[in-house]
């Protein structure tokens, strides 16, 4: 082949051409993700129609919503037959929905403050990057929150706090004599301080006192939050103890834990609430009068501990045997090896499970409405829907409840997924 046969030889590279419109960009995305085949096309069209139906139904309802009237009848008057929500029930009854109908309204700042402080207290537990000093506040928070929500003299939570501190100091003092001895002495010290402090706080019941609010006045979403936070935090230590007991070599202790866990997990929460409501009183000393809220807290805590124990047991079982043997070969005793080697790893593995149980438990706090406590659901079903002004406002009220619970539970589960990614130590 001679040179003259070639009519044209390109010497420089052509610039790259953009891919055809159907092979890149939004069109390709739409083709691949929305219309990849006949079945998918039909499904996409159905989904679009479904979304259109929902939006076209909900938008006018939401946009035409009435926020300022004082009864459903007035709402209907304002709307003149047009579609529109009657959100006035929320603006008028927000306080009942959030705090119950008996909490004194001039004291609303107290649970609100406790709620805000809850975030400060929980933050260092949730985010390791925050300064560790904040944990001191977390330790103080239960006592502050108790004082804020229930009121009364500051001395009661103060005595409780001092008792725990004294107990811990005594524990540290005796720790060299063995874990069991130290723990026992610590408990004795705590009880002693509480007993003595009881006289002090009873004598000076006016010192730094907020208006006391009895437990039966708690209600609304606040009650759900109280039950959720208290029971989850109480059930963690009990759950750990139960899980360790179930793993124990001592048959009696093991069987006590197994029977307790399986019994609690086998019955619905509602039967346990029945126990709290009508049965528990028979088993308490004659003449004693426990708060219903306290009895409910006891039962829900038992319920949650059993579930958390199973989650932690899963974490304990997932640890390689070598970790236990390594702890033994270092010469650590049982308490030390658990505290320093086993539990930190096992708890880390079980975090997602614990979060799941907590979300489930928080949702289950609505069940207290069945035993006629006025939590958020109880408030909606009872006083608000039964009131003549608001009889028939279903969507707005239930929508509000759905939004509240969704925000809290979805937030927690998103946090747990984030944490799982943070804690991932293998194949990054």
């Amino acid at each position, binding site marked *: 082949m001679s040179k003259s046969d070639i009519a044209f030889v390109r010497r420089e590279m052509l610039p790259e051409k953009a891919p055809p419109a159907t092979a890149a960009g939004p069109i390709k995305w739409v083709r*691949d*993700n*929305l219309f*990849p085949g006949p079945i*998918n096309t039909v*499904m*996409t069209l159905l*989904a*679009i129609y*479904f*979304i259109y139906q929902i939006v076209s139904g909900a938008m006018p309802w939401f946009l035409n919503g009435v926020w300022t009237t004082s009864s459903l009848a007035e709402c209907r008057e304002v709307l003149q037959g047009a579609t529109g929500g009657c959100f006035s029930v929320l603006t008028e009854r927000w306080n009942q929905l959030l705090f119950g109908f008996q909490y004194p309204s001039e004291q609303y700042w107290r649970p609100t403050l406790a709620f805000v402080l809850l975030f400060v207290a929980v933050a260092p537990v949730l985010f390791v990057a925050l300064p560790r000093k904040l944990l001191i506040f977390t330790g103080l928070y239960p006592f502050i929150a108790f004082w804020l929500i229930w009121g009364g003299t500051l001395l009661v939570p103060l005595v409780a706090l001092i008792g725990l501190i004294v107990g811990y100091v005594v524990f540290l003092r005796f720790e060299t004599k*063995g874990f*069991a*001895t130290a723990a026992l002495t610590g408990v004795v010290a705590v009880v002693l301080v509480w007993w003595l402090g009881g006289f002090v706080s009873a004598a000076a019941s006016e010192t730094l006192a907020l208006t006391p609010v009895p437990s039966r006045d708690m209600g609304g979403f606040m009650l759900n939050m109280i039950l959720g936070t208290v029971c989850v935090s109480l059930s963690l230590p009990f759950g750990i103890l139960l899980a360790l007991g179930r793993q124990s*070599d*001592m*048959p*009696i*202790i093991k069987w*006590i834990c197994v029977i307790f866990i399986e*019994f609690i*997990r*086998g*019955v*619905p*929460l*509602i*039967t346990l609430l*029945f*126990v709290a409501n*009508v*049965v528990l*009183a*028979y*088993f*308490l*000393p*004659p003449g004693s009068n426990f708060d219903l809220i306290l009895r409910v807290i006891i039962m829900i805590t038992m319920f949650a501990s059993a579930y958390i124990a199973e989650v932690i047991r899963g974490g304990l079982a997932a640890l390689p045997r070598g970790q236990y043997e390594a702890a033994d070969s270092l010469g650590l005793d049982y308490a030390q090896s658990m505290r320093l080697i086993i539990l930190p790893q096992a708890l880390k593995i079980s975090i997602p499970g614990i979060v799941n149980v907590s*979300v489930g438990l928080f*949702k*289950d706090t*609505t*069940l207290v*409405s*069945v035993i006629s406590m006025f939590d958020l*659901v109880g408030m909606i*079903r009872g006083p608000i829907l039964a009131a003549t002004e608001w009889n*028939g406002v*279903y969507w707005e009220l*239930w929508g509000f*409840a*759905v939004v509240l*619970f*969704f925000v809290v*539970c*979805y937030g927690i*589960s998103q946090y747990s997924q984030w944490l799982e990614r943070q804690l991932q130590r293998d194949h990054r």
Partner: protein
Amino acid sequence: MTSISPPRGESFTLSKLINDTRYRSYTFQFIALVLLIALFAYLGSNLAQNLRDAGLNISYGFLSEPAGYDINQRLIEYDSQSTHLRASIVGVLNTLLVAFLGCILATVIGVVVGVLRLSQNWLIRKLMSVYVEIFRNVPVLIWILIIMAVFTAVLPQPRDFRGDDAEASMLWDAFAFTGRGFYFPKPVFETGSTIVVLTFLASIIGIFVYRSYARKQLFQKGRLLPVFWPSVGLFFVPAVLMFFIAGRPISMEYPSLQGFNFQGGIYARNSFISLWFALSIYTAAFIAENVRAGILAVSKGQTEAAASLGLRPNRIMNLVILPQALRIIIPPLISQYLNLTKNSSLAIAVGYMDITGTLGGITLNQTGRAIETVLLLMLFYLAISLAISAVMNVYNNAVKLKER
């Protein structure tokens, strides 16, 4: 733990009970046992004292007394003169009914949603995850009450079906969805229907026999028999044939509007329908997650290996992916069934008369025998839980990877 034989001549001292690992576990167990007994003795003495003060006793005699209340939804004969025991049995059957139907519907919805969450269709995927997140993160009690309110308020009342230009109409003249409940046609079995039912049952057994035969053929001789269409044929053809041979002994009784309400057919109350539906779609959201996790857990290499062996896509699904995924899906699925059964106790919130509504509700209030009724209630649920976990253990042992 290795035990070291005690040095000779060492005498036993009391401090060894707590400091010597050989004796310490006995000490602890003894203390635990004593504490437990003390706790029970304390609770028991309180109970005895309280009962004496209130002039009560523990007795189950109330179970044989007439209940005196009516139950509107019942599967067996019951009237207000029946005993409390019979009322409880009606409740038990109602619980089992809603739990059983709920498990079926929840599985169907859950599997569909779980598979659709892995679809390549972006819109469907997002829609399904919105469904799952919304239902998982809101209490089931709220869903039950919402669906009850929707059914009661949104669906037409029976009176709306009246007249020539009625506001509402029945579906195929057979189904009526009203604010009071749903009305379905009821099959009426006349003489000669037994043989049709028996044929139907026999053909169902036949399907299983055929399937295991086909499986055996595949594994032993490598012959692949068609399974799907023969199964469908076996399911319908013999029963339909026998139905016509026996002279159509089964007919349908359709609900019809008489006066202000429907008569005839099967009437499922609002409370039952909303409880069933709410429990199903709530549990389905959890099942969908289990299904999705199970399918994702089968590694992609399995699909690719099967494809490189030349299997077609549906065979890959049936022979390679599903058997491995089911092993992961079924244990959490069964525990979701257990959850659904326990959640069905929320029936009391919508007035569906399950065991919690009869024994734990009206019987408790009428007789005041709190301890006995709550104990029976707990034992019932405990029995169901133990039965379901027994089934789960059997299954787990059956599908356990056979290791050497």
